[in-house]
């Protein structure tokens, strides 16, 4: 059964030109934006106003409710435009790159020496905090929170995702240091999820559990691994972090500066060439794919073809740009054909072998679908829905072409539970 739970899944064949190979180049785009992580719209107070020049890593805004959490500039830049929604909720802060290599450094001495309070403060002040995803609910953790356990994802099975092991190449020391620091933060330690046979040298033994993930999607998703190894609950928060971010944390502990670049793939069926590059967080996706897109209408997604969303800027936790061809809008079908195919109710889901595989064997999939479709939150929680976020059900939605998407239903359910817990 354990073997089954690690191997079930699907291999999705999303078309993309072959990668030509060569060195991974750094490409800092001229424009970038600080946006809210998926599903989050925190209230912010601006530190740098429109027109101000900020250095790499300098705070541009702070959270209204917890000013110790900073949102920092991913490059030396001029604040071009601040767009806040009602209630000063962050929509986007657009930055234009400025020449000059100023870098903000923090004092990491106490944190590196092992003080967990100092580490938390460093993570919040340096702009590391928004990179953390907390479950349940899949948002940034509240300021100063300590997790029960931290999942570090050194595997990513999304179609055409960059291999985290490539991102870690040459940074093993930083990674081990960051992992050790995180393990000291959580009472149940850190869990490192890596593909079978991945050579990760120097991983600290103390407080770190290693989990081997299967090669098929969704085995390499944090939600599936958390669901299996350490279920999250409102009073038992579990964080998940990409391995590259953990290496960045290790680097922060030594140099006092949080690296702002990440390994990103630019892939998709509407491209002439596949790109792998290092760019800053919140990079302009048009600039990243410029010159590689085939002629014709297209859509640029932040994230993979499965769970990405259209946008202008690379989302804070995403490491993938997908360019899909956009067909012309289908002509309105004849009224009789429309009547033959249109459902007045949500479309039923038929249990098939593909559906079982799409859930990765993690949870009973039909009871979960039924619970989410009828809004039975208690059953969904019993089946472990609090460990999941939308991306974990993206493959189920792909397989069933479900209407309405299950991910949306899960988000509604999480919002309801969050409101109830918060009340």
């Amino acid at each position, binding site marked *: 059964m354990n073997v089954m739970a690690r191997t079930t899944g699907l291999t999705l064949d999303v078309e993309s030109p072959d990668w030509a190979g060569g060195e991974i180049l750094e490409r800092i785009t001229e424009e970038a934006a600080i946006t809210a992580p998926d599903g989050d719209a925190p209230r912010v107070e601006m530190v740098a106003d429109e027109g101000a020049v900020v250095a790499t890593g300098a705070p541009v805004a702070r959270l209204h409710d917890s000013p110790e959490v900073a949102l920092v500039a991913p490059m030396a830049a001029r604040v071009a435009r601040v767009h806040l929604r009602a209630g000063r909720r962050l929509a986007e802060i657009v930055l234009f790159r400025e020449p000059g290599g100023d870098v903000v450094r923090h004092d990491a001495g106490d944190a590196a020496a092992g003080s967990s309070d100092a580490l938390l403060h460093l993570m919040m002040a340096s702009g590391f905090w928004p990179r953390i995803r907390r479950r349940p609910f899949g948002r940034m953790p509240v300021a100063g929170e300590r997790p029960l356990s931290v999942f570090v994802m050194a595997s990513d099975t999304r179609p055409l995702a960059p291999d985290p092991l490539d991102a870690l190449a040459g940074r093993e020391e930083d990674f081990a240091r960051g992992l050790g620091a995180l393990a000291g933060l959580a009472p149940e330690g850190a869990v490192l999820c890596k593909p079978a046979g991945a050579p990760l040298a120097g991983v600290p033994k103390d407080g770190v559990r290693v989990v081997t993930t299967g090669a098929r999607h969704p085995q390499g998703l944090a939600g599936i691994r958390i669901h299996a190894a*350490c279920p999250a609950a409102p009073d*038992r928060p579990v964080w998940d972090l990409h391995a590259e971010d953990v290496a960045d944390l290790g680097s922060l502990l030594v140099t006092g500066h949080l690296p702002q670049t990440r390994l990103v793939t630019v892939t998709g069926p509407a491209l002439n060439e596949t790109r792998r590059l290092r760019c800053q967080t919140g990079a302009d996706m048009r600039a990243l794919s410029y010159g590689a897109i085939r002629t014709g209408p297209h859509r640029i997604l932040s994230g993979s073809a499965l769970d990405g969303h259209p946008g202008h800027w690379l989302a804070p936790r995403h490491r993938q740009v997908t360019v899909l061809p956009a067909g012309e809008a289908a002509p309105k079908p004849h009224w009789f054909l429309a009547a*033959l195919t*249109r459902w007045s109710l949500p479309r*039923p889901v038929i249990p098939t072998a593909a559906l079982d595989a799409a859930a990765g064997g993690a949870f009973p999939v*039909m009871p979960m679908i039924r619970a989410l479709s009828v809004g039975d939150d208690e059953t969904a929680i019993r089946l*472990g829905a609090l460990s999941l976020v939308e991306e974990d059900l993206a493959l189920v939605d792909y397989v*069933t*072409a479900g209407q309405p998407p299950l991910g949306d239903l899960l988000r509604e359910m999480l919002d309801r539970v969050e409101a109830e817990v918060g009340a």
Partner: protein
Amino acid sequence: MIRGLWDSEMVAAILLAALMPVALTWLWFGGLDAAGRLVLALIVAGFWHIVFMLARAQPPSLAGAITALAVAMLAPEDLGLLRMMMGISFGAVFGELVFGGWGRNVVNPATVTLAFLGFGFPAFAWPEFVPPVAWAAIPAAVIGVAAGVMPFGVAAGAVLVAALGVLAGLDLEAVLAPAVIVLVLLVLDPVTSASSTPGRWLNGAFYAAMVILFATGWDGAAPLQMAVGAALLASLAAPTFDELATQIWVAQRRRRHGRT
């Protein structure tokens, strides 16, 4: 952002394609008479699908054709037009369409039709099948399971219990062929069989156990009637097996993690 194609209509189409070996063999040996029954069943089931499309905006489904095929093959013989139409109407409407169409039904509409006809008009003889039709059910099941539209666990559970029955020396020869045909046409329906892996094995095993029980203890019933009765009970019990499997899963998880 990208979407796959396993929506309910695609599953129904693959299921129908998987049933082709058994359907074509039956038509080959049944001739015009069989074709007539099939056309009648298709027309009546199709009529109710159109009615529900107009009244409830519920699009007609290929699953109606699967129901029609199963009814045409398994319904008692020489019922006459009126009884046949009544039975199919009852099964299609109250077995499937009032629940919101295929995918939301609890019991296979063909099973409902057959139970209605069998128990309502007991004087009519149940059909008997030539051996090639029963043999053709095996490739149908293999195609369905390989394509992932028929549950493997149900088939495996049923075969396991049937094999145990044969090994135990029970006389199952008469009931075996109809039981296999009913298994493929009615029990291996992905919607009304259990949907969890342990539940599926239990579901299949339960069906075979019921067939064995009827074969050894139900005097005076035709073999096909026994198999249809077993299929009805198995599909009624399927939600219980699923619930049981879910409870066990939750209990195991609670033991392992202390929470769910």
